[in-house]
């Protein structure tokens, strides 16, 4: 059996015909979907949106709308948190007089331990005047 013979023989076999009643059934099902789709797009206000915007959102406008809603929610929560922060600070109770007295006592004790503020090392170093070594020995022996 030559390959060409077989191919020709096979090509001559007529294929089954599509049932005639399918035409209207399939087309009406497809048209129904197409019409519904166009109606939904119309209802979504495609006409009022610029073409580039609608093509950007298509084919999942619901998903984009959901994403936008989530962002709006996040921003709303963020703003509400910001508003609450100063209020919390204002609402915190002022320190009691005992605490203030205690703090002042601690401050006083610290000042006593450290000593007067004008006796800084830096100031002392300024008062040092270098002298010849011979004069310094005289001071020590005096």
């Amino acid at each position, binding site marked *: 059996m030559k390959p060409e013979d077989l191919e020709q023989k096979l090509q001559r076999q007529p294929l089954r015909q599509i049932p005639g009643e399918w035409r209207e059934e399939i087309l009406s099902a*497809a048209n129904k979907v197409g019409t519904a789709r166009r109606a939904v797009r119309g209802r979504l206000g495609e006409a009022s949106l610029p073409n580039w915007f609608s093509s950007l959102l298509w084919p999942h406008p619901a998903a984009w709308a959901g994403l936008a809603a989530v962002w709006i929610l996040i921003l709303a929560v963020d703003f509400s948190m910001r508003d609450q922060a100063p209020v919390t600070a204002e609402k915190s109770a002022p320190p009691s007089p005992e605490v203030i007295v205690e703090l002042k006592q601690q401050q006083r004790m610290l000042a006593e331990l450290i000593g007067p503020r004008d006796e800084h090392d830096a100031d002392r170093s300024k008062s040092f005047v270098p002298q010849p070594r011979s004069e310094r020995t005289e001071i020590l022996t005096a």
Partner: protein
Amino acid sequence: MRGPDLRRLYDEHAGPLYAFLLNLTRDEADTRDLLQDVFVKLARDEDLLNGVRDERAFLVRLAHNAAIDLIRRRGTRDKTREQFAAEIISPFAPTSDPDERTFRTVLAGALAELPPDQRAVVHLKLWERLTFEQIADALDIPLNTAASRYRYGLDKLRERLRPIYEEIK
């Protein structure tokens, strides 16, 4: 905005798509569902055919993808059903000639034994008269793959049909 001209598309392409899908699924109900899916897809996405040079090749690709999805969904569970169906439904027209009837029955069975990938290429080459380039484009496969699938498929058909072919020649 008006959708694509579905009536024209149906009249021009539904017949060949039907035979192609029937050859792949071997089930008339599945074929009808898949064909309807193709046209629903066209109706749903009005721009689907924009920029398409070869409508037939594009529609064959849609149909083929849908059929492969269906075959995968069926999986091993329905393999027996497919084999049964191969005996019942044939993609070829009925005939009153007994020799031809026998040949077509054996041919339908031999085609059903081919893997779907080879069957698709063989169908498009023999009964759609597409070139390997068109087949490669339609099925989204390399040209060499299309040619080799056809060669393997035809070899298997030859082996399977040899006895009956010699008999009725």
